[in-house]
């Protein structure tokens, strides 16, 4: 299985995923990022923190940026619509 690294980036600082995960494909890596983002939101909301400026940068085992997943992508779409209204 290919390896993907899920770095967390807020534009100024990057928290490196040093180990990476073995996942079947990029879609699975995106799903992992989304699931993780929901977990990070849950913890952030409990401490009244906004992590919306952060994103996952998915990097392949070869070191190429394969995709990015915004933390906001993990929020329920109705909530996002309400916030943006």
């Amino acid at each position, binding site marked *: 299985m290919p390896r993907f690294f*899920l770095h*967390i980036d807020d534009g100024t600082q990057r928290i*490196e*995923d*040093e*180990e990476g995960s073995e996942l079947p494909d990029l879609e699975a890596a995106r799903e992992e990022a989304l699931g*993780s983002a929901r*977990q*990070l939101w849950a*913890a952030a909301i409990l401490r009244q923190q906004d992590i919306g400026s952060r994103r996952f940068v998915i990097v392949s085992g070869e070191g190429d940026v394969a995709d990015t997943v915004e933390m906001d992508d993990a929020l329920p779409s109705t909530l996002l619509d309400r916030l943006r209204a």
Partner: protein
Amino acid sequence: MDFNNRLLRALSPADQDVLRPHLRWSELERGTVLVSPNEPITHVWFPESGLTSIIAMAGSDQGIEVGLAGRDGLVGMPLLLDADRTPHRIFIQVSGAAYSIDGTLFRTLLDDHAGIRKLLLRYVQAYSTQTTYTALSNGMHTVEERLARWLLMSHDRQDDDEIPLTHDFLALMLGVRRPSVTIALHSLEGLGFIKATRGLIVVRKREELEEFAGAGYGVPEAEYERLIGQLR
């Protein structure tokens, strides 16, 4: 045969002599499964070093750590409690070594030697306190606090300050996804309590880490010392 295992050490010299001829030394590699869910437990292991993890399973390939045992304890507790198997999975999380004894023989020896049985039952009490505080932490504490607690528990069970653990393992220990571990390590590192590099966590400020871990750390450890003796 000098023991590093705290339970073997706490036995009377006479009881140590009862066990000694039956103990077999084995090296334990990370990942080795000592107890599989619902399968007969063949041996009891007394770790001399390294860490074993007791996992409550959610299906066949997922679970969360509910208990930790190293040189403070033993693996194969159901045999002490007149049960031959457990739904839990127990595996080696940090490589080390252990003395093991045949399970059937162990049960016979317990019947004949009350001193051994009593000490090991007190360990069951200490261990169950640990698991109840794991429940407390899982219910009440943040991932950062739980990570701090877990690192302290791990640190208690080894001599040096370097804990060889991957984020993958820590995610299983804490029942969270790996990025949550990465973020939590980053926070503790930012506070100067630890230094995390690939596959290795170094404890830098133990006292501060204890303070940070709050109510999750301390009570089970005090209970262990009351019932058995020195933990660290």
